[in-house]
């Protein structure tokens, strides 16, 4: 199954995933297999072998397989690595990058609540209050909309929630410099990096407790 995922053989991968479920393969092992596949796909992207079509396909495949595995993980009482709420900021309707990030995070064992696009700061705030995520992740493609990320951070600050979450930002209009300026905890230049950063942020947060 790992080979099929890495080679983006979608039908084969889905079929093998179904067979794994039928054969009662440990769902945690399925998730770790997908995570391994994800690492290989990430390396291929960074080395210039895979490009956006491959990444989109990987995201789609992983979403399908995780949908099969999720009920088994729940039944087994498996805890997610961490919880991430993710959304594209207010006035921005771009979601390709965010959707790939969400799919890869789920594949990597995170619980992800995708708030969608054009997300008002109050909606991020409400989700942070109610869901108690480890990470709030925001995406913006436009230089005119990335400013909304600061509004979200300010809203979290005013509500006393800023210290309770880690903020991760990304998207075409975002840079490390911008992320530092607005007080985000991390900036990811692409979906692959977002997964690595999320793992690190959850670990950092656990140490802070």
């Amino acid at each position: 199954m790992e080979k099929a995922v890495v080679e983006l053989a979608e039908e084969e991968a889905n079929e093998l995933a179904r067979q794994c479920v039928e054969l009662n393969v440990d769902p945690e092992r399925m998730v770790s297999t997908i995570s391994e596949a994800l690492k290989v796909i990430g390396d291929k992207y960074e080395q210039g072998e895979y490009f956006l079509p491959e990444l989109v396909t990987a995201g789609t495949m992983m979403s399908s397989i995780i949908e099969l595995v999720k009920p088994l993980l729940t039944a087994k009482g498996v805890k997610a690595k961490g919880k991430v709420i993710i959304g594209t900021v207010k006035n921005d309707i771009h979601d390709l990058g965010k959707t790939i990030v969400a799919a890869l995070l789920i594949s990597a064992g995170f619980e992800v609540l995708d708030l969608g696009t054009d997300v008002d700061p109050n909606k991020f705030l409400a989700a942070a209050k109610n869901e108690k995520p480890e990470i709030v992740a925001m995406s913006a493609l436009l230089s005119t909309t990335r400013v909304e990320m600061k509004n979200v951070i300010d809203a979290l600050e005013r509500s006393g929630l800023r210290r309770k979450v880690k903020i991760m930002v990304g998207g075409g209009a975002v840079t490390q410099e911008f992320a530092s300026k607005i007080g985000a905890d991390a900036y990811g230049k692409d979906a692959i990096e977002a997964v690595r950063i999320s793992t690190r942020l959850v670990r950092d947060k656990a140490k802070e407790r």
Partner: protein
Amino acid sequence: MNSVERVLTTINLKEPDRVPLDLGGPISGITKIAYDGLKTHLEMRELPSVVWDRMQQLVEIDERVLQRFGIDFRHIRLNPPRKEEIKEVSGESFVNEWGITFRRSGYYFEIVDDLSPLYKASLIDEVESYRGPKPHEGRFRGLREKAKKLSEQGFAVTCDAFTGGVLELPVWLRGFKKFYHDLVANPEFADALLDRASELLKLFWGAFLDEVGDYAHIALIGDDYGMQQGMLISPKMWREKVKNRIRELFSFVKQKAKVKIELHSCGSVRPIVGDLIEIGLDVLNPVQPRAKDMDSFQLKEEFGDRICFHGGIDIQYVLPTGSRKDVQDEVKTKIQAFAPGGGYILGAAHNLQPDVPPSNIAAMYDAAHRYGRYPIDQMAGE
């Protein structure tokens, strides 16, 4: 030298009297907010600001502004579709004549991926029977006379792209995620989309050039292949899926009219510049300077004897955030990189956005005149 002589000389890789300048069209134009600022700066506030491109919020540029900056190009585009071809859903959303839905996203109108006309299609038949808009007479009315007049006035007349190209139109018709997924998971379906898009593009370009081809000098095709850090699709996939189709479009256009072909592709496209030259491209735009492997000096060294470059002035940092001196230095550097030997048309590396101060727009063109006279002073600024 008049403008068209200047432009054709440089496209033919010879040195004209000065570096030609472009402003206008769908990828070297100006947004409404930037234009409003510019009009104030130039004390031309009485001029109207008329949006002709809702997606990008680009405006018609008055002749007085073009004259002020000594712009060598005049752009011709299709007339807008009939009112009944556009469906206004609300003030915040509309569906255009291709069936593509746009929704307001901040300043712009963005395409809504999952409302694309072929988003739900699953059969190749559905793709092949996608009708698209008709190139009816109203789209071309008056364009022949306009092109003739501009040509007689000595300007370089560019027929502008009216929609995405071979790779981009399928994205707009099918949705980005679905089409990119199709490219890997359902290649025959992707081929059907690419073929249908190519047919429709030839239909429109054929009708367009039948009208204006006798008076046009350049055909501008827009088709994004790159992003900031690399290509959107692999060079291998581009060569398999796009190269021959765009080659056919280039050949079709050149058979229809005696025009030079200019391609706009944002982003990092270095791996395929050689291929584009091979298939007949004359001018490459915008050579986005901050994209990966798009260094102006390196591009000129590797390809400058075979292709003309258009654009090059950084719109991501220098024009919006730089000082007047930064803009002047940027212009000097890009002229030194691209202009020697001819083969350079100067302009911003995309449309002038709301965050570009008008003083920087003026600084760019004024510096282009000051430093763009041939022979190029390659020691300037050192």
